[in-house]
């Protein structure tokens, strides 16, 4: 469970987050959506202490993160990056096995864990284990990124625009798989995106943000049927129009 209470974050340049309170229940997926500068990535970074709140508190599983060792916290929370963040001088297996290795697992345990994880994300360990990231496609690299994030058996997964650098077909396949992993592993997941359609399709809860302020927090259905403001309504216009147009195309073709 992740809880933010009255969190304010100020950077030297200005206010990044204003009086933010929200809760992600265990096993839920929260999608943070908004344009650049809305504060969604800052919110994500609060969870594993890559950003400290100027005021307010952040609780992970009931514990105030300010009182927890940052390194231990980050290892207990998996992170997936938009640009994959794979280390180019390490093989796929070494990237995935890096944290288990640093946490003192035996070589045999690491080997077994890496194989399990690669299979979990749909990459054959024998084929991909010894390859270097540069030899993989974008989709394959992000699968490795997901496997690496899951390596220390985290209960929380943070994903910062994980599909942003992928083509639409790859994005769709990986999104489905991530959603499935989230359910199968019982993860509590926070996912950042600027794509409202993706937010509605992926999230149990969707938080719409703008200029450091949370505009609305609710299920996709609540957002669609009862947008709290004109701005939220305007953001929902795009997926709604897409659905209508596609619907007409599909029925016209039938």
């Amino acid at each position, binding site marked *: 469970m992740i809880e933010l209470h009255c969190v304010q974050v100020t950077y030297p340049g200005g206010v990044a987050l204003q009086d933010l309170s929200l809760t992600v229940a265990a096993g839920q997926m929260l999608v943070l959506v908004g344009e650049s500068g809305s504060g969604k990535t800052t919110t994500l970074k609060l969870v*594993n202490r*890559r950003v400290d709140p100027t005021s307010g508190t952040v609780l992970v599983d009931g514990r105030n993160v300010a009182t927890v060792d*940052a*390194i*231990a*916290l*980050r*290892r207990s929370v998996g*992170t997936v*990056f938009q*640009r994959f*963040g*794979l*280390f*180019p*001088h390490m093989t796929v297996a070494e990237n995935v096995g*890096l*944290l288990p290795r*640093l946490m003192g697992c035996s070589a045999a345990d690491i080997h077994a864990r890496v194989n399990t994880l690669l299979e979990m994300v749909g990459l054959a360990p024998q084929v991909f284990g010894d390859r270097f990231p540069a030899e993989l496609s974008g989709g394959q690299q992000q699968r490795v990124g997901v496997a*690496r*994030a899951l390596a220390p058996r985290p209960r929380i997964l943070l994903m910062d625009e994980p599909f942003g650098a992928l083509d639409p077909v790859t994005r769709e396949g990986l999104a489905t798989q991530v959603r499935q992993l989230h359910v199968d592993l019982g993860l509590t997941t926070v996912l950042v995106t600027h794509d409202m359609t993706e937010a509605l399709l992926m999230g149990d809860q969707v938080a719409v943000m703008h200029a450091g302020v949370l505009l609305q927090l609710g299920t996709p259905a609540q957002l669609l049927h009862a947008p709290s403001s004109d701005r939220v309504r305007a953001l929902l216009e795009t997926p709604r129009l897409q659905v209508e147009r596609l619907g007409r195309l599909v029925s016209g073709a039938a």
Partner: protein
Amino acid sequence: MSASLSEQLEHLPEYMGAHMLLCGVALLLGLCISLPMALLVVRRPRAAAVVLGSAGVIQTIPSLALLALMVPLLKSFGFLPALVALVLYSMLPILRNTVTGISQVDPNLTEAANALGLTPGQMLRLVEIPLALPIIVAGVRTSAVWVVGIATLSTPVGQTSLGNYIFGGLQTRNWTAVMVGCVLAAALALLIDLLLALAERGARLRRPMHTVLGLGALVVVLVTGSLWPHLATSRPPDTRQVVAPQTSAGAASQSAPVTSVRVGAKTFTEQYILAALMERHLRAAGLVVTRADSLGSTVAFDALCRSEIDVYVDYSGTLWANAMKRQDKAPPWKVLAELAGWLADRHGVRLLGALGFENAYALAMRRDRATQLGIATVQDLTHHAPLLAVGSDYEFFQRPEWRTLQQTYGLAFRETVSFDSTFMYPAVVENKVDIITAFSSDGRIAAYDLVVLDDPRHAFPPYDAVVLLSPRVATDAAVVGALQEMLGRIDVAHMRQANLMVDRDDDKWTPDQAAGWLDEQTRRP
């Protein structure tokens, strides 16, 4: 050519061994200092700017000057000042490349490492250093090439190196020696560069064998090379060759008999010949002799005062003007007497005696030019000087005698040009300059048919060649006895002939051969 080449290669183990030892230690120390220092400042931009700035300033000091400065700064001579200067020189490329290489690692990757929960140390070790490795190694390679090249300049501060070929060759017009020195230094630099490149390639492409091979070969080459002088001269274990502890001036008079003697020589032909001659006499007396050739003029004197060399030949006028800072005139016997007293009182150095000839500075010009201008003495130059260019060696225009000469005769030349003394004679012969400050014992005055101008007002002091002994050997019976045989025996005609044998372009002799000839001519029957 091939005969003179094989002559040169006889010195190879000694010169190459000393060179490799110096470079190996300098590189290792440079690496051990620069790498941690770079890692310490890499996350502190202001500290990095200070460190890189300082290393940059050191780099702008001309390398020969940096080496020369280390002698008075460290009050030492030979290996230590050369080593310190080379270590300082080696630092900039390693520092700069390490800092640059690490700060240029993709910020997405350091951000990812941070988010995954790597500690700053793990990030450095597992992510930043491996990714910056090619750039860091490129810095080490640059530094290695610089060090091997600059180490040739450590000869004048008393450290044997491949520079002995170059400096010695330049002074004795032995171009084979100069070429040998250049080619060997270049080959050594290339070899080290190649092996480092191999090791880095192995690390990058994950071929541990290549890395082990590259680094292993590098270590084997440097260690074997450094031991070469000891392997090559497989002399029986010599218990006498214990280096006497260095003692302060004057404090060694009561110590046990001296068994090994270090003979010094400055950077010109006559000095090499006289050093070889003294070596012969000392060896004949059963002493172990080592040599320190091509020393800067004041380097040799300072080294003698500290007993880092034990004996060399200097010239009374040089010591009178430069060491005693005297500008007054005195007859030769008085100069020698006052000098002997001053050296003993001030430095514990013994002026053993004069060899019998003088090697004075003397103004010389082409015979036809002197006749044309009607010049026979320095006095005659006064009117012509504003139209004339004068050439000299590196040190003369810095010496007090030059000021005295100008003042005594009211000379104001159009131009002064400094040369290596090797090139001074051709310069006046080819009319590049009108007058040179020749050396009166130099065989080339006669060989080039130059006129030596009289010095009627005795602006130049006397320059009797004298043997000086360090405090350590000043009272040693064997050393004194061996060298006393030479005193008063060498006249200027013989010295000129010996110098010419080495300096001439045809039928060149080595300084050792010339010393042998001089020995035969001057030994008591």
